[in-house]
């Protein structure tokens, strides 16, 4: 069971403040904190100069000199430490997104199974949730990693399953052929499609609020997924060919490789948080009073309508805050990647500490990045969920 962040607006600050702007206690506490920091700074400085190192962040621009097994942003051993940290950050975000998708799918399936009318399905979901709630995530990760490395075929006997080529070193997928125009197309679509969908959804919501008429949102979103890349491809004259992974001697050429480390971290965190998401969903669904469903039936709503108009909105209101916690926890938990050697932010930081002997600076940077990521994520999610709750509230009245 992971820890919970507080609900977004729970932190009210007690009774109204009275007294002078700065009290004696403030000065005392401030001086104590300052003294502690000064003592630590003095000790760190004397320890580091004794080891022949000048404290400071200048090392960030120096050549890192270590390679990363896989990167999303271009990075080589001759690049700077700053760039290495950014490459690690990109890897952290990539694996967080992948495990988020797996966790949501697993959580949704198991959550639905755990409230289904089939007793055996409920038993399966319950057993799964209990198993993963009572095991440490690092153990789950290590077991999946060792199973993948020992169980999957070596690269020369790689398993070809349709478009996938699976070996114990990496899983290969076909991908757009290596061409700068294809890269531009992909990145531009990734930005533009969600932007257009967001704009259209906003327009549809305003229109419905004004006139009561519904504009189609889902069909338009699907159309945008096809139209935007299509228009971009024509405009860029992108070659659009697919590059298929092919086995050539000791390696696989073409396509993209998802390293076994990436895959195991994504699957382990996906399964682990899937159990927690399932539990959150089960709680949310069971919290809907059965009278609501009976009332919907009495009004003549069909089962699908009952789910969409009566159950889901109420479930969303109860599950969104704990789900936000889950997403923040998942992001933080990607830091266990270091145990299997995936080059995430934490493992880049670990390597940098070993090479530079600058643990203070490196950890300050790393923890600030994690903190910032967490604050941004919870900020965005809380803003979004506040809107959902506000809207549901208005509709409900």
């Amino acid at each position, binding site marked *: *069971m992971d*820890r*919970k962040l*507080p609900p977004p607006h*729970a*932190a*009210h*600050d*007690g*009774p109204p*403040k009275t007294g002078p702007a700065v*009290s004696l*206690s*403030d000065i005392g*506490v*401030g001086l104590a*904190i300052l003294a502690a920091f000064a003592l630590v700074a003095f*000790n*760190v400085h*004397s*320890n580091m100069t004794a080891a022949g190192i000048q404290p400071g962040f200048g090392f960030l621009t120096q050549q890192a000199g270590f390679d990363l097994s896989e990167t999303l942003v271009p990075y080589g051993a001759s690049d700077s430490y700053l760039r290495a940290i950014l490459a690690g950050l990109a890897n952290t975000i990539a694996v967080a997104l992948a495990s988020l998708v797996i966790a949501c799918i697993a959580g949704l399936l198991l959550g639905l*199974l755990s409230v*289904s*009318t*089939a*007793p*055996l*399905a409920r038993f*399966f979901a319950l057993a799964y949730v209990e*198993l993963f*709630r*009572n*095991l*440490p*995530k*690092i*153990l789950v990760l*290590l*077991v999946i990693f*060792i*199973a993948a490395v*020992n169980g999957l075929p070596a690269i020369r006997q790689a398993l070809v399953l349709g478009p996938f080529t699976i070996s114990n070193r990496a899983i290969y997928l076909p991908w757009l052929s290596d061409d700068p125009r294809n890269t531009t197309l992909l990145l531009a679509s990734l930005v533009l499609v969600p932007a257009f969908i967001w704009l259209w959804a906003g327009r549809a919501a305003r229109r419905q609020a004004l006139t009561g008429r519904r504009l189609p949102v889902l069909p338009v979103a699907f159309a945008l997924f096809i139209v935007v890349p299509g228009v971009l491809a024509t405009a860029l004259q992108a070659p659009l060919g697919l590059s298929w992974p092919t086995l050539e001697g000791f390696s696989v050429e073409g396509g993209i490789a998802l390293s076994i480390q990436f895959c195991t971290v994504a699957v382990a965190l996906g399964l682990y948080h899937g159990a927690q998401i399932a539990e959150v969903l089960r709680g949310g669904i069971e919290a809907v009073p059965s009278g609501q469903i009976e009332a919907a039936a009495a009004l003549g709503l069909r089962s699908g309508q009952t789910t969409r108009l009566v159950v889901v909105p109420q479930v969303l209101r109860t599950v969104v805050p704990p789900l936000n916690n889950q997403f923040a926890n998942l992001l*933080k*938990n*990607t*830091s*266990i990647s*270091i*145990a299997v050697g995936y080059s995430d932010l*934490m493992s880049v930081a*670990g390597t940098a500490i070993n090479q530079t002997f600058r*643990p*203070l600076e490196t*950890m300050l940077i*790393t*923890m600030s990045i*994690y*903190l910032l990521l*967490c*604050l941004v994520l919870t900020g965005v999610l809380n803003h979004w969920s506040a809107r959902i709750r506000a809207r549901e509230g208005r509709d409900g009245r």
Partner: protein
Amino acid sequence: MSGATQSIGFGRLSAWLLRQLSRPGASLLSLASGGLVLTLLWAIADWLVFSAVPPLADPSACVEAAGACWPFWAEKSRFILFGTYPFDEQWRPMLVSLLLIGLSIATGQMAVSGRWLNIKLTAGLWLAGIAASFALMGGGILGLVPVDATRWNGLPILLILSTIALALALPVGVLLALARYQTRHRLLHRAAGAYVEIMRGVPMVTLLFVGVFVLPLTLPKGTAIDPIIAVLIALVFFHAAYFAEDVRSGLMALPAGQHEAASSLGLGFWQTARLVLLPQAIERAMPALVNSTIGAYKDTSLVVILGLHDLSATARMAFSDVAWGNQALEAYVFVGVWFLISCSYLSWIGRRLAARAAKGRNRSA
């Protein structure tokens, strides 16, 4: 045994069949999940029993066997539990493990029953247990052979880093919660808030790195600190933030009248906190505290990343023994079973406390 019972039985059966036929989706789901559950159960039984190598068989049979290697468990369990601790002295880590498990279960049972020993006595017992653990593990006194901390492995490391860190984190967390709850000393309120939010916004792994790599730097020149102690300190400060938030939510849930009544009785801040606010707040926060405890206990296994040899590290050492082929699954299953048992006990405490809290709410309502 007359026709009547038979016909009732048959009526039930046909009603059941009709019900199944009337909702084919649910029936299919039942069939599919039933198949899945049976397959899984069969696979587990097959691995554990039917294809397994029996405990007294020759270990060399494990190489070809598709099932579990019981000789591995028979031979390596002790190694997974105590690692490279000197073989003849392994009664010491065993005693430490039993002591810490005993203290934890005693505390857990007190929490479940709601009948606490004198708080000072409990704290004293824990402090004595902590001191005894370190004395027994390290030796060097009372004629015990000194054992270097690098050879403290397996279960005692897990228990020292979880139970002791949690036992020490609770009072720190309570103080932090009080500091954040009060608003008279504004800077203290802000500082406690900032501390708790920062700790909860970073992964535990980063804190472990801070403990092992940064903490020694912040000590006066020439002082060394053992990695186990460094990690213990880091864990105390990390868990304290989560405990603080749990206790604070308990404090926030108290009616303002409690505070006002205590003030009108002329109680000072500490008396109010100790006699009026904290007992109620902690009672309310108990289920959340147990949840945090379970999370912290499971996360203790992350110390393997820092090269401390807890259970998952000794398991890896056990299956890396070249004389044994590859029994990785057996080794990790051993560790997994330990965590399943211990976490189930903690979850049981949590459920009991939540049920009691619900009953209390119904009674007062």
